[in-house]
């Protein structure tokens, strides 16, 4: 999609969680109780920040190297790659993709994370890259671990990587989480389960042996679809 394309369909509400999901306790006092006011698409909605190459260096996409202080971070190296595209499956180039995650022991590099698991001094868990002309992005990182949280008794978050994406416009802004295939914690996680049943599987990466780097790292594929034209080229 080019910057000049200013046609967006309504947000696909069946793809997104509701504001209030009782099982996820933090939604109870924070979810708005009133419906949003629907507004027309003006320049305010059809434009947005173009944050790109000036914001990061190539090493920012390698979380196993971008925070090294005195050695390699500990954990299972993985590659996470995929395409950023619109609803018509056209690539979204130049999208800033920012990620963050806990370390291989299940601890975030964050003062608010008090989980009794070790901090890794060589791993910040933060990275960024920009999608290429085909919409492709690629990170090298460590596989994050599950960790406990206080939502309910014996609550554990399944391993996940947070993704933040800026597409062509404010309308295409997305923050989401990527999960790993076959994780037994998925059906027990109220955040994952808040997503409509037909849409949940889009949050789960696929193991891809073609992405796996021999002798180095397992590969996962995670394609990301941002709001945008639904017609494929030639139909519209």
């Amino acid at each position, binding site marked *: 999609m080019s910057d000049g394309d200013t046609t967006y369909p309504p947000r696909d509400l069946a793809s997104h969680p509701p504001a209030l999901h009782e099982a996820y306790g933090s939604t109870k006092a924070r979810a*708005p109780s009133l419906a949003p006011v629907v*507004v027309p698409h003006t320049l305010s909605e059809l*434009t947005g920040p173009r944050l790109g190459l000036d914001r990061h260096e190539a090493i920012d996409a390698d979380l196993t190297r971008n925070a090294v202080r005195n050695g390699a971070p500990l954990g299972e190296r993985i590659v996470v790659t995929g395409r950023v595209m619109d609803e018509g499956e056209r690539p979204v180039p130049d999208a800033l993709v920012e990620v963050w995650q806990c370390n291989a022991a299940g601890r975030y590099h964050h003062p608010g994370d008090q989980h009794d698991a070790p901090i890794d001094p060589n791993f910040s868990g933060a990275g960024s890259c920009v999608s290429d002309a085909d919409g492709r992005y690629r990170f090298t990182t460590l596989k994050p671990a599950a960790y406990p949280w206080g939502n309910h008794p014996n609550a554990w978050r399944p391993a996940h990587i*947070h993704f933040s994406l800026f597409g062509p416009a404010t309308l295409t802004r997305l923050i989401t989480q990527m999960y790993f295939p076959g994780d037994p914690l998925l059906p027990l996680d109220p955040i994952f389960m808040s*997503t*409509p049943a037909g849409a949940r599987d889009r949050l789960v990466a696929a193991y891809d042996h073609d992405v796996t780097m021999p002798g180095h790292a397992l590969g996962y594929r995670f394609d990301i679809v941002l709001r945008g034209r639904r017609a494929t080229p030639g139909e519209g």
Partner: protein
Amino acid sequence: MARETPSQTIGPFFHEALIRPGENILAGDDTAGARIVVEGRITDGDGAPVGDALVELWQANAAGRYAHATDARAEVPLDAAFTGYGRGRTDGDGVFRFETIKPGPVPGPGNSLQAPHLNLVIFARGLLNHLTTRLYFEDEAANETDPVLNLVDEARRGTLIAQRRERGGQTVYRLDIRLQGAGETVFLEA
């Protein structure tokens, strides 16, 4: 056709990746326009501060043009010293703060003109989808005819209008945001 990737909450641990010092300061020495401070406090349905929110700001420049290819109006100047984007976190008291310039008016639907406004996007733990709202300025007569404000029930319009005061030589616009309950902020769906 591909379906949208679902939204998930930003959670409480985004700061290492998303917060850079000074990124809530949009106006530099060479930026054209009237300097303003924008601040507000985000509270939840219990009145408790939301101390772990991320707030993003997107706005036009002082002439009313967005730094984006879709805003192709060559007759309205761009400002090389202004991107129009900023982001910042709320502090433990739920307060966010930006230093920017007052934007000019931008076109609305048809031949209408929109009153000067800031576009705000809010992310936080407990928000499975981000929230979008606008900040208008109380001292703008154009608010009366703004096409978006006029879509909002008059009784709730005030939740989008920041109050102006002078403080220590600065012009401060204040807009508190209530996520839920009495005085709930009007959120927008485009």
